[in-house]
Every structure is written in C-alpha cells, then in structure tokens.
C-alpha cells in the first residue's frame, strides 16, 4: 500500500492552531462566550470547520439565518483558499494560536463570493482538481470519469484531512486518510514526472525516468506542466524582522497569479541544481527559447523566481524588486530544491502548488 512520502505525510498532518472569537456585534449574552480553540488542517478550508465552531457560539447569536464568514484583523477571508495558505500569506510572523474572528451575520457580498457550507467548498475543490487535470493533461476526462464511490472517498479523505482516523477491522487497519487519498487520486494519473527524489514509504523505489530521457534522441522532450497558484504581496517598506512586516488589509494588496510552470526534463537532468540568489540576474526565457535546449535551469525553484519576475515586469515594477519571503506549506524552501520534488510533495489535495511570496518594491523617491 502506498503510504506516500514522508513529506506528504507531514503536509497532510500539518495543522494551524486557531483561536476563534465571535465578533462583538453578534454577541447577545453576558458574559460574552470565550473563544473557540480549534486545530485546523492546513489542507482544509475554513467553512468546513463551522460545524465544530458553531456549538461554541450558538447560544450567543442574535436571531436570524447563518451566513458564516471569517475575518483576520479586518480582512474578510476568502473561503476557497486552503487554511494553510491563508496563514502563510497573512501571517508573515506566524501567530500561534492564530486569532480569527467569525461572523454569523452580515456576509460581505461585495468582497467574498457566496459560500453555502460544505457543498460550495466541495464544488470549488472538484473544479480546482479538474483545472489541475486540464493543465497537466489538456483535458479533465480522468476526473469526470471517476466512479461515484471514488468521488465520495476522495472528498471524504480531504475533509477529514489530518486527523488520524484509523479504523481497525479484524487484524487489518483500514487505510487512514492519506492512503485513501493516494489510492483514489493515483487512478487519476495526475503525477508530475521528473522527480526521483521522493522516497516513498513501504513501496519499491520506482524506476526513474532518467534512463528513458537519456536514450531518447528523437529530440522530442516530454514536458510536465505543474499547476501553481502564486500569491504575491507587494510591500513598499523594507523590513528585517518578520514581525514588522506590513499587515495586509485589503485583497487589492495581493496579486494572485495562476499560471502553469513547464519543466523540460532534458534540461532538468542536464542542469546542476544550484542557482544564484540574485533575482534580477535571473533570465526570463520564454517557452520557445527554452525548448531549443538552451540549458536554462527550469527544473528548480529558480523557475518560480522567473515567474515572479515576469509578474514584476507585467506590473512595470522596477528591477530592484526583492523577494523578502517565499513560503510553501509553511516552509521556506531552499532555492536548490528541485521543483519537481516541491510539486510532488508540497502540493495540496487538489493538485495545485500554492506559493506565497512577499515582494518588496521600494517606493520611488519624491524630489
């Protein structure tokens, strides 16, 4: 049974401790209810926690129907972004526990798209999965042809996320959530190639693709496209300490980029994995140039920086833009890390790799 790699296990079990306060405008009892303490799976979504949270506050709520939304320091939280990503993006200095405010009334329809509980989250998840499948395969037949029971199992394994729910029947342990997820999702064949670095637990090491690439002299290079969601927070002032990082008070401050990243396997094995740290020197090569075998280092985190650089150029920002912080699943990855490894091990269940970055662009000096 494929239990996934060590890294996948850590990601799956990762959780953020939350301290959830009911917004004062909705408190009708004296004394006000104490905050709820909840461990939220990183790969999960905030609306899925509502059934756990509601009992803490139901007696204090004013009459009316519930329209639940969360907020951090005044910023309404987008519910379709995984909890871990929200934390990495909005809390440069990790706050433990993370203090959030929950509202049961007054949904800010002008900022947030509507959410009707688990169904909305499931719909968003399946569509993201289809989008990832489309990016990787050019179509999403594999997701649409999933059997009903597979679909149910897949969603359930994600919903239950990090909790270690093992059921023992007789002498056999029925698989925990990660195994279920891997079993169902492997049928979708959405894996990313070019990664020989992941060590799988309890399974024979797979034949690497290196031999296939070396003997392939026909010139056609297999490329892997990795779905990536890149969240860039533009800041103006420099900060050394993460505590001093400016607080995000509006989603306008965050540029969200959704673009596939191509990996050319041939170059990946030809290139060394080390790259230089200075972003301005990273060359932006478009896809046509790369496929001619120029040997650009597309297989590493440098590609991410290139994409960031493209974004920076698109916004006509100056060359001295500087990446202050780059976070994936709460980790700041070493730049030498092969990108394929990152994609295979740190992606979310909907097969997207979420990357949060703080980019500093100094304000022009007024004379």
């Amino acid at each position, binding site marked *: 049974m494929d239990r996934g790699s060590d890294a996948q296990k850590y990601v799956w079990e990762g959780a953020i401790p939350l301290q959830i306060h009911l917004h004062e405008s909705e408190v009708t009892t004296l004394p006000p209810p104490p905050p709820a303490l909840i461990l939220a799976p990183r790969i999960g979504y905030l609306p899925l926690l509502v059934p756990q949270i509601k009992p803490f506050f139901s007696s204090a709520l004013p009459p009316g129907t519930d329209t639940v939304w969360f907020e951090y320091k005044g910023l309404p939280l*987008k519910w*379709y972004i995984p909890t871990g990503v929200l934390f990495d993006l909005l809390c440069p200095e990790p706050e433990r526990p993370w203090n959030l405010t929950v509202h049961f009334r007054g949904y800010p329809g002008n900022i947030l*798209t509507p959410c009707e509980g688990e169904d909305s989250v499931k*719909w*968003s998840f399946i*569509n*993201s999965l*289809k*989008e990832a499948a*489309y*990016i990787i395969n050019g*179509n*999403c037949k594999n997701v*649409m042809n999933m059997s009903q029971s597979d679909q149910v199992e897949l969603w359930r394994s994600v919903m239950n996320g990090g909790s270690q729910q093992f059921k023992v029947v007789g002498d056999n342990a029925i698989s925990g959530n990660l195994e279920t997820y891997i079993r169902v999702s492997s049928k979708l064949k959405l894996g990313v190639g070019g990664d020989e670095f992941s060590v799988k637990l309890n399974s024979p090491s797979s034949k690497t693709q290196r031999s296939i690439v070396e003997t392939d002299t026909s010139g056609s290079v297999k490329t892997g496209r990795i779905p990536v969601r890149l969240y860039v927070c533009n800041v103006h002032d420099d900060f050394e300490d993460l505590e001093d990082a400016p607080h995000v008070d509006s989603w306008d401050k965050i540029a*969200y*980029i*959704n*673009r*596939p990243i191509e990996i050319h396997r041939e170059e990946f094995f030809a290139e060394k994995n080390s790259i230089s740290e200075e972003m301005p020197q990273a060359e932006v090569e478009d896809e046509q140039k790369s496929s001619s075998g120029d040997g650009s280092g597309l297989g590493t985190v440098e590609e991410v920086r290139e994409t960031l650089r493209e974004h920076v*150029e*698109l*916004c*006509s920002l100056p060359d001295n833009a500087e990446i202050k912080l780059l976070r994936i699943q709460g980790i700041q990855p070493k730049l030498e890390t092969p990108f394929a490894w990152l994609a295979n091990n740190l992606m979310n269940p909907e097969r997207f790799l979420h990357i949060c970055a703080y980019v500093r662009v100094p304000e022009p000096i007024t004379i």
Partner: protein
Amino acid sequence: MASESSTTARRVVVHLRATGDAPILKQAKFKIAGTDKFAKVIDFLCRQLHRETLFVYLNSAFSPNPDELVIDLYNNFGFDGKLVVNYACSMAWG
C-alpha cells in the same frame, strides 16, 4: 495584438456557448478587459439571460473560480485567440 508586458487594458475575446437547454444568445462574442474578474462574465450572462443562477464552464471542462482574472484564464486555457465559455441552466459537467 498588444504585447504581454503592456499594462494598458488588454481585452480578451470571450465566446459564449449555450449548453443543454440554455437559451442561445443572439450576440455570442464579446470583448472584456483582461483585468476584470471572471465573476463579471458570470454576472453579465445572468443579466442577459434573466436568470439568478447559471452554471458556467471553460472549454466544456470545469468551472473556474469567479475571482480569477480573465487574462489569466485566457493565457492558460484560451485558444484560437479567444476564451470559450459554456453556460448551462443545470449542472452540465458535474
């Protein structure tokens, strides 16, 4: 075609296609600013068809997040110079 690095509003051609029993629009091709969100396309469709809810898909495959920018969707999923958007009154590609 405006170059990628231009920040002036680059407009994207959107081709709206009816699916199932959804009414067909007289005018099916529209231009929208790339910097607008996909939610604007959905809203526009709802108003044109006088419906509260519609199921809107890209390339007959999946429903993108309404917060996505049209230009990103076009860059990723557009072809032949346009973005094909399918709409239906009931769930088409569940």
